[in-house]
């Protein structure tokens, strides 16, 4: 049994996704602690352009499974390919992103190989004898569970996006690169992606955004969300919504933040006209800074906000957009 660590990277439309670098960063830290090597595995097409970045961010070995058939995601085929690769050289730990791909692939792979999987972890620690523990939020963040693996390796985990800081790339690093050929018959592909439709209004996903401007019932109607879009554009952030705003049909379901929506971990969360239900507060509990703008000084959101403005949001938000514009233009 090796003491190596593997990460499965992701790309989208030819670009390495940030989660890949986050996985490398955490993987590098763990590999140094157990004195193992860090392997970065990618599946897809046209992957060799990522080798340098993967290496500079910590990979000792880069495994590229280049196959045009991997250009769109298919859970069964991806799991089969990875299990073939893993069984010839099983590492101690395997990390993937808690992304739409990783959340689908990791449980399949774990089931295929009989492995323990901890989903959506926010931190990892190694105890004596290289025993791995991880912390994962449950009940949308109302509680934190520390989990431990037992039995067959690799121990598999998915890492929540946006909770790992990135190191400076080390341009002096080098890595071995392999492009193994796997014998994978067409029967491995059981489903087919017909089309990927990009949501034109959401260039940035809430789970990956560093800044989120979110609106609730206090926005009074769908048309007023343009105020938040303007602010988000200046801050290069994403627009979210409370459940009340989504259920009213003002915003799409994909923008809901909270226990039955997305759990987010931005650097800055600006809650506009959101009173702050238990479910919503759980979903933003790992935001670094929370700003609340609400007319009602009794709103529960003020109990968790680092900075609060009790005021009419229709006056405040345009002023805020203007002020940020001025600040960011001069810098």
């Amino acid at each position, binding site marked *: 049994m090796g003491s190596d660590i593997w990460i499965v990277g992701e790309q*989208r439309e030819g670009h390495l996704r940030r989660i890949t670098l986050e996985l490398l960063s955490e993987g590098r830290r763990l590999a140094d602690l157990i004195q193992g090597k860090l392997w970065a595995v990618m599946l897809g097409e046209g992957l060799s352009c990522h080798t340098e970045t993967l290496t500079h961010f910590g990979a000792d070995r880069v495994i590229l499974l280049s196959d045009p058939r991997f250009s*769109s*995601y298919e*859970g069964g085929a991806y799991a089969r390919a990875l299990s073939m690769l893993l069984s010839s050289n099983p590492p101690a730990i395997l990390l993937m992103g808690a992304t*739409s*791909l990783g*959340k*689908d692939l990791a*449980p399949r792979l*774990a*089931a295929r190989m*009989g492995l*323990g999987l*901890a*989903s*959506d972890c926010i931190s990892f620690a190694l105890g004596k004898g290289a025993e791995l523990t991880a912390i994962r939020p*449950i*009940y*949308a*963040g*109302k*509680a*934190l*569970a*520390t*989990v431990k*693996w*037992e039995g*067959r390796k690799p121990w598999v985990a998915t890492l929540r996006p946006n909770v790992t800081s990135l190191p400076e790339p080390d341009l002096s690093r080098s890595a071995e690169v392999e492009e193994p050929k796997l014998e994978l018959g067409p029967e491995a592909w*059981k*489903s*087919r*992606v*017909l089309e*990927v*439709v*990009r*949501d034109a209004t959401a*260039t940035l*996903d809430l789970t990956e955004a560093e800044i989120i401007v979110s609106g609730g019932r206090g926005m009074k109607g769908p048309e007023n969300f343009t105020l938040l879009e303007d602010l988000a554009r200046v801050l290069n952030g994403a627009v979210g919504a409370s459940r009340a705003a989504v259920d009213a049909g003002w915003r799409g379901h994909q923008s*809901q933040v909270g226990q*039955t929506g997305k759990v987010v971990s931005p650097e*800055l969360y600006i809650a506009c006209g959101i009173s702050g239900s238990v*479910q919503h507060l759980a979903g933003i*509990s790992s935001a670094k800074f*929370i*700003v609340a703008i609400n007319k009602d000084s009794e709103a529960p959101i003020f*109990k*968790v906000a*680092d*900075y609060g*403005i*009790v*005021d009419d949001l229709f*006056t*405040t938000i345009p*002023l*805020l957009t203007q*002020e940020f514009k001025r600040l*960011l233009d001069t810098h």
Partner: protein
Amino acid sequence: MLKSSLAPIFFSWEVNFRLKLVVCIKSVPDTASSIRIKPDSPSVNGEGLTFVMNPYDEYAVEEALRIKEKQASAEITAISLGGIAAKEALRTALSMGVDQAIHLTDPSFDELDSQGIARILAKAVSSLGFDLILCGKQAVDLDSAQVGPALAEILDLPQIGVVTKLEFDGQGRHLRGHRQIEGGTEIVECPIPCVITAQKGLNEPRYPSLKGILMAKKREIPEWNGSQLKLGEEEAAGGPGKVNIISLKNPSLRSPGRILQGDSEQKVKELVQLLREEAKVF
């Protein structure tokens, strides 16, 4: 709204076989609950908690019912693994209109992780027989989001996860699912039998009717335990690799921060300055 270039399909469809639908559901504390940790063990204090059907599973049940509305010969079975609360969730499913419910319960199941639970469910659905298995995309208690994809892998089936729209083809032999991904939607097609996991937006779950509630109250819900499921030693023990919760805590509470004073302009100026100089966000 998302615009797809694909032509709309599958408005009406006929099948010449009896479609068997299985919905996997879980009972969870209501999302309005505060979660308190037991001082002496890594578990949640269940006192005072109201248990309900997992919200994402409601979408799965509703979708099955809508399929049956179009295809009257379809048969829907709800299954749930767990203690006494699981039975109540099954009763809710019956009151919404599913045809039958099976309660998977055994003290040994308490030790299982999500992967272990998926293996038990796989055993149960295999003995029921199925064309389509519907699950919620995750349960809002442990937030693992593993059972749907794991179930598909164990049963060697295609799976479409986190689905906000689902359509059958004209013969009822293929499904097309709109799967939510970061910043967009993947439109995925696969043959049945398959697994889908439901996301908010798929439909608007119905409330049980009074008649449904009264009828569900009287229904027998069969219990299947480990020996009835003929579990192998490894399945009962939870598989070769496993994850255990060793401790639980509540996150440290955020303390209320500063309420800014002054007129609107002053407050905004101060906020931007604080974010820059104190929080160092910019």
